């Protein structure tokens, strides 16, 4: 929901700003640029939530696999997959608690851990997705 909120708010803002600058409907290339910027801005703004979400999923999965009463691993690294290094139980109780814990124990920069691959995927994906959507919409409608 947060991702959609940031994505569409940015998209509308850039779409209006772009159209008012060129005084005509945006071309496919301009739409690609809009899509790219939307992907970049959305990735950067939603990365902290994504980091906490990934850790929450990891610790829940691990807790579910071990059952109640199992020993907790120290919160030293980010949760990884089942085939990767052992998943950590960070002890987060929710999104806000996770955000606070990360800032307190690892610093603000840790909220944007793993940003680069996500940025690449989201920005390029959005750069493809948005112009194709607008183009096909124009053709189909």
């Amino acid at each position, binding site marked *: *929901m947060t*991702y*959609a909120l940031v994505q*569409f708010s940015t998209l509308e803002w850039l779409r209006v700003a772009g159209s008012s600058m060129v005084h005509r409907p945006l071309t496919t290339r301009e739409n690609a640029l809009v899509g790219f910027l939307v992907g970049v801005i959305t990735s950067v703004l939603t990365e902290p939530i994504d980091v906490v979400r990934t850790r929450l999923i990891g610790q829940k999965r691990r807790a579910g696999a071990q059952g109640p009463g199992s020993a907790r691993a120290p919160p030293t690294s980010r949760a990884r*997959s*089942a*085939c990767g290094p052992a998943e950590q139980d960070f002890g987060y109780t929710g999104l806000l608690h996770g955000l606070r814990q990360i800032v307190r124990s690892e610093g603000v920069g840790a909220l944007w851990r793993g940003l680069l691959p996500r940025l690449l995927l989201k920005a390029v994906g959005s750069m*493809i997705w948005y112009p*194709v959507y607008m183009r*096909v919409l124009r053709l189909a409608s």
Partner: protein
Amino acid sequence: MLTSQRQVMGILIAAVAAEWARKGTLYPLDTITTRLQYSRRPITRLQLAEAKVADSQPSAVTQLEQIRTIVRNGGGPLSLYKGIGTQLVGVVPTSLVYMPTYELVTELMRSLDATHFSGAGRLPASQIASVATGVVSSCVRVPISVVKVTCAPLLACLHSLPCPLRPRSLPPRRLGYSSASLQMPRTPSRPPWRRTGGAGSTPAGPRRAPWT
């Protein structure tokens, strides 16, 4: 208002086409990312040498080298597209609700704004539509994810990754984990009747599969 059937169909078609274009283009990158994330660390040159793809100096290797190994042992660049059909089908339900919800709710909010506030823009149409889109797409995405997780036990992926990044003690078996993004072909990828050398190898000439 987006009242005509043609407009709604246009949105549906455009949404699916855009998602397919995005998924189809980025699928190899997505596959590499997934395989890297699912591989064990640290990876050394020695481990790669055991897979006969690198020299025997035991030092940390770059992600680029790991990617090369994944592509080579997977059977070439085309192997990165394995399972794309499943993925393209899988994105259809979410695509069918994501953009259509946003477009329709935005239009609804704008018409309400025009009716009650004389189009003064007091209703944050885009923001309300975004929240609605997030809620609706979650309602579709979450059950699909639950089904995926239920049908594909994640632990089995350990055994279905016969790559040099997997520990040697694990047998190169597939244990039924069929998630497309985690599938990696066995090495060597050549079928048994095509291998040369060793006992039981077939001589040169037309070769047939053992069961034919």
